[in-house]
């Protein structure tokens, strides 16, 4: 069945079951990916997927069921399963459907995606550039290119009928260099319009990322001034962004519960959530409940202005939703998440940050974020790599150490904010940050 036919079948089944309040959420994506190893195409893949989630609201409670199997049999089963699930819910959070009436932004016309052979040619070119960038680049080095289009649609029984479409390309280079019997790796990626991809810059960045770590040593344990690179700072922000969710707060899983209006970070910290951040490929006009998506400051000059809300958390808190109902996949129940979340850049150049740090460490990468960081406690203790800062300048590479702190004290300790912002996976961005007194575990 097509989605339209399936949607009609679900609506028919819902009506037959006497269900008056429901929504139908649909996502569709198609992607082509090329992977290069040595100078050859290692893999080429084309993927198409689509899924539907049916949510009914019965006695103020939501029941969900989802499927990829768009058949008449599944349409009926979907409604039955959702009804059973709604009847099991006990949470006192009230479920709502959102009515028509918001004014929605419109998205720029989507870029045309490259064809299979264009994608392959570019990936092969990227791989050649990687090998050309340095004589130590070794086999194991890989290039990936992907072109993807996505569609999100939401229909509800209150008359909403919304759709967003987006398309983007992504290039990824993973470089391996061999030196003195050891292997070192580095990577770089770009996301955006295919015509904006700069393969030369990408190859140079990935190889430099690997080469710069040659000969990295450990560091001694102690307290250091640390400059977190754009990437490392964004990694931390991404790991802890759930602390800004009102849903987590209401469940007692965020220490920011009831702290709106309080100073929670240094003056130089402003955190913004923007559904249409210009450099992000994930441009959206509505959230997972159909509320018009808009940009907002979550933290402004260190003060927590708001947590992120969906309809249910906003009702519970007695505020208006911030339009942050999330559906990380078609099948997910509605949660809360930012769109593109970033720490607003300041004035400092990289050199100025290093100079202010004086003696310390420039952390360029963090590993093990899913394990070594806990958003409920704010604690993190993470494997890191980077460079020493000596006399206010970046010097020798270092690795095999840990940086540890608590995210909430970290936010207060930010001394200085860099002026360049890097987006991680198109979702979370940060400039480089100078933070004093970070615990480093090493030799």
């Amino acid at each position, binding site marked *: 069945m097509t989605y339209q036919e399936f949607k009609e079948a679900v609506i028919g089944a819902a009506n037959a079951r006497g269900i008056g309040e429901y929504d139908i959420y649909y996502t569709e994506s198609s992607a082509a990916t090329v992977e290069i190893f040595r100078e050859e*195409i*290692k*893999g080429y*893949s*084309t*993927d*198409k*997927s689509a*899924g539907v989630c049916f949510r009914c609201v019965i006695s103020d409670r939501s*029941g*969900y*069921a*989802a*499927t*990829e*199997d*768009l058949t008449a049999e599944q349409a009926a089963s979907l409604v039955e399963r*959702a009804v*059973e*699930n709604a009847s*099991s*819910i*006990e*949470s*006192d959070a009230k479920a709502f459907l959102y009515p028509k009436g918001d004014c929605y932004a419109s998205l720029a016309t989507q870029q045309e995606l490259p064809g299979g052979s264009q994608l392959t040619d570019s990936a092969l070119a990227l791989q050649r550039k990687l090998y050309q960038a340095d004589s130590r680049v*070794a*086999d*194991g080095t890989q290039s990936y290119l992907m072109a993807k289009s996505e569609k999100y649609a939401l229909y509800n029984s209150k008359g909403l009928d919304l759709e967003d479409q987006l398309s983007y390309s992504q290039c990824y280079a993973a470089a*391996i260099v061999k030196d003195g019997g*050891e*292997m070192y*790796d580095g990577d770089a990626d770009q996301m955006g319009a295919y015509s904006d991809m700069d393969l030369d810059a990408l190859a140079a960045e990935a190889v430099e990322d690997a080469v710069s770590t040659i000969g990295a040593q*450990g560091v001694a*344990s102690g307290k250091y001034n640390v400059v977190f690179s754009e990437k490392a700072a964004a990694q931390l922000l991404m790991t802890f962004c759930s602390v800004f969710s009102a849903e987590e707060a209401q*469940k*007692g899983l965020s*220490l920011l519960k009831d702290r709106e209006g309080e100073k929670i970070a240094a003056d130089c910290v402003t955190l913004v959530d923007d559904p249409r951040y210009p450099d992000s490929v994930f441009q959206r006009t509505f959230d997972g409940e159909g509320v018009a998506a808009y940009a907002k400051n979550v933290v402004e000059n260190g003060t927590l202005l708001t947590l992120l809300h969906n309809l249910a958390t906003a009702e519970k808190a007695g505020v208006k939703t911030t339009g942050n109902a999330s559906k990380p996949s078609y*099948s997910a*129940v509605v949660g809360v998440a930012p769109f593109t979340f970033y720490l607003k850049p300041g004035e400092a150049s990289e050199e100025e940050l290093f100079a202010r740090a004086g003696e310390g460490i420039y952390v360029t990468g963090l*590993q*093990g974020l*899913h*394990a*070594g960081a*806990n958003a*409920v*406690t704010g*604690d993190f*203790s*993470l*494997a890191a790599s980077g460079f020493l800062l000596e006399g206010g300048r970046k010097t020798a590479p270092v*690795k*095999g*150490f*840990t940086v*540890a*702190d608590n995210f909430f004290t970290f936010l207060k300790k930010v001394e200085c904010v860099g002026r360049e912002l890097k987006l991680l996976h198109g979702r979370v961005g940060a400039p480089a940050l100078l933070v004093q007194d970070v*615990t480093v*575990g090493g*030799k």
Partner: protein
Amino acid sequence: MLSRKLLEEALARALSTGADYAEVYAEHTRSKYIELVSKKVDSIGDNVISGVGIRIFQGTRCVSGSASTLEPSAVLECASKVAEALSDCATVENLVLRERLFGDVHPIKIVPSDVANAEKIDYLKEACEAAYAYSGEISQATGTFQEVDHRIQIATSEGLLTQDRQIRSRIFISAVASGNGENQTGMIAPGARKGVELFEDFCPGELGRHAAAQAVTMLHAGYIEAGVMPVAIESGFGGVIFHEACGHSLEASSVALGQSQFAGKLGEQIANVKVTAIDDGTIPNGWGSINIDDEGTPAQKNVLIENGILKTYMVDKLNGRRLGMASTGSSRRQNYKYEPTSRMTNTYIAAGQDSDEEIIASMEYGLYAKEMGGGSVNPVTGEFNFAVREGYIVRNGKICEPVRGASLVGKGSEIIQKIDMVGKNVVRGQGMCGASSGSIPTDVGQPLIRVSSITVGGR
């Protein structure tokens, strides 16, 4: 799922442009979870995924495609699209599929979808109640029951037609202890390739108390001072050290591309002689067990390292072509959308000769990692990290006060030389392992072990 005739036609189409191997993987999976928050059912997720993944090989080149449908016309279209990426001419011999059933060593007593929500909810409530009852410092307890009924069908141009039905269940109980503006967490998450009879294996109250006790202990713990020291890592989920430090680097997916610290080292002493490590996909009802892998090869018990000597890698068909090695039944994928590759199943360090008492008594000052969190590794450099969820200082051979915020970092090839004491009682723990072919259930395991020195990150 798909008819034999349709599979034969799809394989023929996939081979039509010169591929030397074709494979159709069809899947229909029902999954569900029920989550309890603040003693009330908070959310229920309920999903069906259904689709096909088709791969063809030409030498070591692989073309693949997937589509979220099992409609015959769409399956054939997917096969044609995959074939289009190659352009040679080929004469496809008349392909005949022969069905093979490799048996199922994982009996399921109660299929989860046959059990109403209420029974699962009652179990979670009992566990969460026990967590709250454990201490007034418990500010939140959450419980989740997760069930998956994963049906797969695999047909290949080698003539194989086979299928499997993998039912798994898992219980997550976590607790938050709060005081003085701080939170600390505790959790436990047992799972198995079983149905709802998993409940019979674990008393819900014990799960709740375990999570609560850990959270309360950590709330009153100080931070460990960072440094290099000996560490005793407890059995069970402690086995994540081998999984991260070594296991990923033994997957053909990194070895075959020269991206592993252990590439080219078969037959060499890579670990301490006390270390024997096994990946065994055949353990009855094991969380990471499979009857067949996702290429249709029966699961095996693979001894990876024997007394420190590297015996084999974990190999899938495609990377096996690069390595000149046969499949070890290790090819896995999260679902049809991912291309399968070599992955772990149930991986553990085998029992040794040292007693637990001797191991602790041998440490003058160090860390006893009672429970580990997850971790990650860079297989190229072997640099790994993982988190200690519940740790204690060892002083003069005695376990002393608890410490929070510890993480362990190191390099796999160095750490496995330093595993110098291995206890006698192997226990396994459950995890989800993420890599290029998606997130899959794996067991880790080991007896209590000692690592003679490792960098401990703390505050």
